[in-house]
């Protein structure tokens, strides 16, 4: 469903991604790892139209590159952020409600309907907030939440669009081991037929537990792609991590 060919992203003299080709099949949970600065976030940014890129990206048969972020999101490709981005001045529930712009059942007149009145959407948003474990915080301002809860909110906000492709950028970043375990459990429930999940992570336990396939980036190049435990044993992958951190014991 997602086919990336020869994707390249440059920032001035720096090549953050070089000639990356990668496939993701429908319903698959694909892990993406790599040392710091290897281009994982850049890949997500290129896919979601945040940074300009060259190459070719096809998503369900349509070309993505060159489209604006809002068009891409409306096609069903939704992401979360490594460095948390929530609307801090809105409540948790409002954040989730607001994320429903341009979903298929939203019509133009809905723009002027009261956001307090479209009961079905509200109920759905509330359910999702409960599903990610924020039921008690639904009416709190998002900016007041602790980091782990904000990550959960990002997840709820992504799910409300019922994405066909979900891109998670370090969903357990900055979390304690206990919080990480909970988050892992939560992500495990997200994959379903018709939805592909790509998880960027540094924590191998999370990756190995969740992913059916693993891709490794190093200095902007794809150096491995395959079955997780096998990939982690490859010398090139171990070498990429040497001097920074070992992929296996993290």
């Amino acid at each position: 469903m997602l086919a990336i060919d020869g994707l390249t992203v440059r920032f001035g003299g720096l090549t953050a991604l070089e000639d990356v080709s990668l496939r993701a099949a429908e319903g698959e949970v694909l892990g993406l790892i790599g040392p710091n600065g290897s281009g994982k976030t850049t890949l997500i940014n290129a896919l979601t139209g945040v940074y300009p890129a060259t190459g070719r990206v096809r998503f369900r048969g349509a070309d993505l590159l060159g489209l604006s972020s809002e068009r891409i999101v409306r096609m069903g490709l939704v992401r979360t952020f490594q460095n948390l981005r929530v609307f801090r001045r809105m409540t948790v529930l409002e954040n989730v409600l607001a994320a429903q712009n341009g979903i298929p059942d939203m019509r133009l007149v809905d723009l002027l309907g009261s956001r307090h009145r479209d009961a079905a959407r509200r109920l759905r948003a509330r359910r999702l907030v409960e599903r990610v474990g924020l039921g008690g915080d639904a009416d709190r301002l998002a900016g007041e939440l602790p980091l782990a809860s904000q990550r959960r909110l990002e997840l709820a906000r992504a799910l409300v669009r019922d994405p066909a492709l979900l891109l998670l950028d370090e969903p357990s970043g900055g979390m304690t081991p206990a919080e990480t375990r909970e988050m892992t459990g939560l992500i495990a429930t997200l994959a379903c037929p018709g939805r592909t999940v790509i998880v960027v992570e540094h924590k191998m336990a999370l990756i190995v537990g969740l992913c059916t396939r693993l891709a490794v980036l190093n200095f902007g190049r794809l150096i491995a792609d395959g079955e997780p435990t096998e990939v982690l044993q490859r010398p090139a992958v171990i070498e990429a991590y040497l001097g920074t951190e070992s992929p296996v014991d993290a």
Partner: protein
Amino acid sequence: MADFLQNCLDGIAIGAAYALLALGFTLIFGVLRRLNLSYGPSIMAGVFAGTAAYMAFNAGLAEVAIATVIGAVVVGAYIERLCFWAIRKDMAVASMVSSFVIWMQIEEGVTLLFPDRTYAFPGILADSVVEFGPFFLRASSLAMLAIAALAVLGLLALIYRTHFGLAVRAVSENPEAARVAGVNTGLVTLLAFACASALGGLAGFLIAAGDQQITPLFGLWATFKGLIAMMLGGMGSIPGAVLGGLLLGTVEANALWYLGVETRDLIAYMLLFAVLTFRPGGLMGQAALMARRAAESRV
């Protein structure tokens, strides 16, 4: 053609004053990445301090100049503490608005202390003229041009040759990193502000001495001229400030000659608007602006 050349000379003359004003503006922007719209009024307050010294003690030129610079620095420090130091670093726009409302305060304060509005200021070289064949230039303008050139050299030396300059550049690149590296960012900022104000005081002194008078409206004039000149040259660029000042002066002088006084100001603002929308980095700051934008847009 002769008209045009004489206009350009006139333009360079007034442009030298604009350049001096733009230099202080650009210094503040360079360090803080924020705009101080009260820069002109702080200079105006300084010039009034000079006038007070002149009227009350019949002070000589040097003392008046010193009083002007001190006045500008004191008011500048007040602005720095209230509008910049006290406002969160990521809120550049709040600082700008704050400096605008403080402008009203300064202007009203000065008007209360100096109710007659127009006051005499001691002149220097006011009536002497230097001739180049058929063309002529006021000597005070020539002096201003020379001082603007010296100020650029002095600023460049200060920024690129001294320890203080290194600290200034560090704060301007990355305040967090500078703090971690042991730079006292608050002090550096205050001192940079004081430098800009002192430079502004000097500019204000020279301009007022050329005009031999001062009114509270000088603040508005100085802010707008300095701001436009800086924007034309590129916010944060030292050579850009001089180039922008001279460009603004020349365009204005020609517009005045060929189109009249209302049109002169109109054209200056049209130029500013065009630069902001088509090339917001100005003549010399486009690359720096693009780099900054890219850094800010990291996701």
